[in-house]
């Protein structure tokens, strides 16, 4: 049993693929097939390109405030790859890679950060909730999704993701305790990227690990190298099995690093050193995953170049389409979806305002 082998209170952290792209735990190597590995890698690659380009667009004044996720691709994609499509994701907001893997179009993700609600309008059958900016509440929502799955005997498991900073919020504890109390199939995945805006993880709690908080809920907790895509896959696979078998929630702490700013409004040079970032740059997940694939002869620099070109082109076109066609908001949309049907008051306010705009020649 994986969770018994890696006790966070004994500082045991799951790693399978180390920083040099060497398998260090052969027993736990999931030996994923080429097709799946390439799907994971290509999603991470697209996420990285989309992330870097979003920053460029923002600097050019074309994108609004955006939360970079560079460095967190492996933990998200590794975890999502271990789920089934019927399972659920209840995300926070730094989850672009996970959302892509779940099948949410990049167009939707970009549209949301572009400042248009249609970015959260995607297929509910993807079993993925829209981004959640209020810190921590997605754990409560995840608990509810999981309780519904259990009550309706749907055989789904639910993953709620949260940052290290989010684990300070009451809702993290309440949601996990709910799920544990009802033995609901909720997995909470902490993306411990070390920084809650300017506040370092070590200052936000006296606990040595975040995974050890599982003890208080009476559930398994495991700390994983979040930059190791294979370890993340294995940890989530075991957690999903545990939850699916009716054994209740699991807490996973993925140790990673936020290589970028909190958002484009943030300046991390105020609160952390260049040296610290350098250390984590060397450990970032794409380097080792790519090397691993090349060593297996599953991937080549030539294919990398082609993919880079393809993704650059795709991301550029996706954003251009938003700027040219999808991004502008329509007046009626801000009224129409407040309720299933417009109330008389809303209808009046909409009509009045529309008439006023028309008088102004807009």
């Amino acid at each position, binding site marked *: 049993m994986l969770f018994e082998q890696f006790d966070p209170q004994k500082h045991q952290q799951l790693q399978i693929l180390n920083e040099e792209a060497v398998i260090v735990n052969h027993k736990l190597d999931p030996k994923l097939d080429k097709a799946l590995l390439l799907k994971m890698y290509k999603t991470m690659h697209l996420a990285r390109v989309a992330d870097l380009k979003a920053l460029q667009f923002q600097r050019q004044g074309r994108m609004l405030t955006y939360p970079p996720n560079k460095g967190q691709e492996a933990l998200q994609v590794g975890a999502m790859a271990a789920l089934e499509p019927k399972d659920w994701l209840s995300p926070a907001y730094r989850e672009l890679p996970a959302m892509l893997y779940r099948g949410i179009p990049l167009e939707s993700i970009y549209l949301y950060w572009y400042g248009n609600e249609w970015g959260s309008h995607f297929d509910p059958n993807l079993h993925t909730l829209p981004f959640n*900016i*209020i810190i921590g509440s997605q754990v409560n929502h995840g608990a509810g999704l999981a309780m519904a799955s259990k009550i309706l005997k749907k055989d789904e498991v639910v993953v709620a993701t949260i940052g290290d900073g989010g684990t300070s919020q009451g809702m993290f504890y309440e949601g996990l305790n709910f799920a544990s109390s009802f033995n609901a199939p909720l997995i909470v995945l902490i993306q411990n990227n070390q920084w809650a*805006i300017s506040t370092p993880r070590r200052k936000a709690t006296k606990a040595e690990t975040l995974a050890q908080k599982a003890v208080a809920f009476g559930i398994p907790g495991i700390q994983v190298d979040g930059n190791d895509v294979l370890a993340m896959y294995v940890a989530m696979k075991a957690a999903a099995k545990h939850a699916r078998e009716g054994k209740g929630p699991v807490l996973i702490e993925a140790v990673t690093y936020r290589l970028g700013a909190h958002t484009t409004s*943030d300046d991390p040079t105020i609160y952390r050193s260049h040296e610290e970032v350098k250390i984590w740059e060397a450990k970032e997940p794409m380097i080792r995953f790519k090397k691993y694939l090349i060593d297996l002869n599953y991937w080549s620099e030539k294919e990398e170049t082609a993919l880079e070109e393809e993704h650059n082109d795709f991301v550029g076109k996706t954003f251009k389409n938003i700027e040219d066609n999808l991004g502008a908001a329509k007046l009626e949309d801000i*009224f129409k979806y407040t309720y299933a049907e417009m109330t008389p008051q809303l209808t009046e306010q909409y009509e009045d305002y529309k008439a006023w705009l028309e008088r102004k020649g807009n």
Partner: protein
Amino acid sequence: MATINLLEAINQALDQKLADDKRVVIFGEDAGFEGGVFRATAGLQKKYGEDRVFDTPIAESAIIGSALGMSLNGLLPVAEIQFDGFLFPGYAELVSHVARYRNRSRGAFSAPLVIRVPVGGGIRALEHHSESLETLLGHIPGLKIVTPSTPYDAKGLLISAIEDPDPVIFLEPKRIYRSGKQEVPTEMYRIPIGKAKVVKTGTDITVVAWGAMLREAEKALKLLENDNVNVELIDLRTISPIDEATIIESVKKTGRFLVVQEAVKSYGPGAELIALVNEKAFLHLEAPPSRVTGHDITVPLARAEQFHFVNPEQIRDAILKVVRF
């Protein structure tokens, strides 16, 4: 005197109260080392140490609840909630505890604390970063709610808030944090809580605004320059308790009344102010009191916010409608 913006005025008030009163402590998410995401508390931790100016974990309920505990045990906490939309996890503490302590203990306990919150929209911010809180806070008996529209008022009101014996929520219109500078005295001074300010005297209509809307109303007055309308403009400054005397006196003079409110329409301060005018100045009215507000909708994301937030042309048209009734 120094020429500073609203954010700098807040920083100055906090700085001077930290120096003036050892009981003052300042905290919030990123409010310590970094000095806040807007830099309202910049430099204060360095100057006064980590015991008096500090970062907290992300937990608004604990920020407000612990501020209450601190205020019950000898400190004067000035806590920062990072953005308006993040207040709600801590709202229960305000409603159920902070606001009630004095009353439920018949004065044995009190909660002399300040909660600072950047509020409002118009800066193309993210979801949950553009909310108006006046209604949800003004409706709670036991809380005082103030909101400045100028650097001068920000400093004087914040000092009064910190010195007030009751809990004060200090709403900072983030849209105008850096948008204008003003001469502000370098020494400490106070602006009384519960007092509105007549910004411009006039005879034809009383217009009440506050926070970021004051500036929009001033822009509307410029648009009215050729319309031969003499507006009396009042900055409410305190949402609760409302300065009834200033408003009623003005309406008795002008006979017309308009409220400008950024928040959604229903149950807002506009409704409260119009009810007040109806109750106390009805026979002086020459036209129905009116309001120009946001729509009754969720604050739209950035690409549609211009459809929601009140603009000077709307205010001008609303003024003319009341005057020409």
